[in-house]
């Protein structure tokens, strides 16, 4: 058996080594953080820019088990952990942001259907494609004052920002997928007495659906970015609202846990979509 050096394409690290290697950068980052934190705390024991473990624990404790400052809820003395969590700051913010996120996710569904039609029906393509190509290049954030007029400063302007920001890109992406389906299949389906509906929804749509879900997975982060932008500009609750407020007095002890929490949530949504995709479409090789 041939032996390969460390950097050969055909090299095969054993399982343990591969696992260790994949953790290396995490350890490195945490190490760098700790080093910076220790150094800054030596200079100034109350440093808030790079909080140490104790400060982070205080921050996590207060965000997970204590109500938000603006709430009047006072936990009874015998309140269980669950009850405290239920009224906590992070719960409230996650709920508010999650609702906006989910609503915009649901609103993206019509966009996908529109894309299917644009890619498949020439009249739809003629009517929409050029406009969406143009609209996609507009920086949605700069439209915000207009969104405020149309949707007010409450929930809908933030949701609209997400949808306007992400939908055109998704539409273009899905249109490409639809167009990539071989023409022969469509012709074949028609010769087998399929109607327009059959071709669109039973031949094409089911084929591109796994790709659509993958595209959605890639768009999760832009969606979160737009949600954050909206919440930082005008809000009274939400994950990004809290981060914006905490920034005013350098509450990094709360901001860092929040940032990690958002990353974890996004990872979970992504994982869920991936698993769903594999279950629904075992035939799909991405």
């Amino acid at each position, binding site marked *: 058996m041939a032996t390969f050096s460390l950097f050969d394409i055909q090299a095969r690290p054993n399982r343990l080594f591969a696992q260790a290697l994949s953790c290396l950068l995490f350890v490195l980052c945490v190490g760098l953080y700790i080093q910076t934190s220790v150094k800054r705390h030596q200079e100034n024991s*109350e*440093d808030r820019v790079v909080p140490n473990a104790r400060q982070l624990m205080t921050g996590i404790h207060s965000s997970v088990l204590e109500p938000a400052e603006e709430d009047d809820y006072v936990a009874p003395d015998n309140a269980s952990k669950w009850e405290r969590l239920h009224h906590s700051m992070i719960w409230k913010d996650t709920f508010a942001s999650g609702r906006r996120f989910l609503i915009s996710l649901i609103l993206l569904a019509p966009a996908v259907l529109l894309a299917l039609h644009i890619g498949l029906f020439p009249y739809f393509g003629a009517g929409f494609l050029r406009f969406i190509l143009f609209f996609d290049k507009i920086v949605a954030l700069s439209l915000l004052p207009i969104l405020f007029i149309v949707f*007010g400063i409450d929930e809908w302007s933030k949701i609209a920002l997400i949808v306007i920001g992400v939908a055109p890109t998704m539409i273009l992406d899905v249109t490409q997928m639809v167009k990539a389906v071989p023409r022969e299949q469509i012709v074949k389906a028609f010769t087998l007495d399929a109607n327009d509906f059959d071709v669109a929804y039973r031949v094409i749509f089911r084929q591109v659906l796994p790709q659509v879900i993958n595209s959605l997975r890639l768009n999760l982060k832009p969606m979160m970015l737009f949600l954050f932008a909206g919440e930082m500009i005008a809000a*009274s609750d939400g994950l990004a609202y809290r981060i914006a407020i905490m920034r005013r*007095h350098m509450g990094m*002890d709360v901001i860092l846990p929040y940032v990690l929490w958002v990353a974890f949530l996004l990872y979970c949504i992504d994982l869920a979509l991936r698993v769903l995709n594999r279950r629904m479409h075992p035939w799909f090789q991405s």
Partner: protein
Amino acid sequence: MTITVRRSFLAAFCFVLMTSGMLLASETASAEVPTFTVGWSVYAGWNPYFYMQKSGILKKWADKYGIAIKVQRFDYAASLDSFVAKNIDACTMTNMEALDMPAAAGVDSTVLIVGDYSNGNDAVLVRNGLTFDKLSGQRIMLVQKTVSEYLLERAMVLNGQQAQLPKLHLINTSDSDIVPAFMNNSSNTTVVTWKPLVSQILVDQSVHSIFDSSKIPGEILDLLVIRTEVLNRPDGSGAKFAKAINGAWYEAMQKLTSSGATQTQALKISASASGDSIDSYREQLKTTYLFAEPKAAAEFTTGTLLKQKMELVRQFCFKHGLLGKDIKSVEDVAIAYPDGSVQGRKDRVRLRFNPIYMQAAQQGKL
């Protein structure tokens, strides 16, 4: 072959030697002159820093004390971040942020210049003649945890509506979008903000001011703050900086409040710092109480009034958690005054008011 390789090595070696020599030389050159960086952000009372730099006044004073002073413009929040992270030596900020940003983060800070106080620059604006007793339940747009929220709270207290405070529905709105967000929708009834945004909103005839900072004079102070460790550097360069910046500041103040062409020039450059017209800048200055004379600034700093105002501010900061999750008592971020008295625990002084250099300017000893 080997010869050419050797030659190129030699050339590279020489190059490295030369550049490092040059770097060293430039480093030693700059090490001879202590350099200080002042961060400032756009505001009527701070725009003169731009004028000081543009007009050469600052350089004149820096040269006099054998130091170099750089002036750098920031966004307000970014300037505070840089100051706390110790990237800049001195920074303009309000008394509230001096307490809740550097001081609460353990960065011992000293107030070098008490420049002005907001005397109407910050205002509570309402639509359709709304009054304070009807504010509860209304949506109020403002940048939360800033002097805007402080002003609103003081306004409620002074109008006897303290009990309503928890019922206010505050919407944190970025100052970059607060004007269009408020004006474009008549269902938004209340906004708290500062000039020139206030003037932009008051263009709407149905909106008027029901409270402004002229009713709480001396509570929203605009300061120049320096890290105490920089001021007290053993080589004395910090003190030189303090003298130079005070000298330059009061020369700029004098030009700004003089008359004729000098004043117009000073106003024009200061206004251009924030992209304002001279008229708009004059209007902002009308509601800014400038301590143009070092005497006035020094007297205010050494007076008892300051302590009362700071007491209100520090209680507000503590009540709103602005001093941080770690700070369990308002006494843990203490303030030291010129007469030696301390608000809070003596072993935890984090913010100091130092009138020495303003007094030196007053006595013409700079």
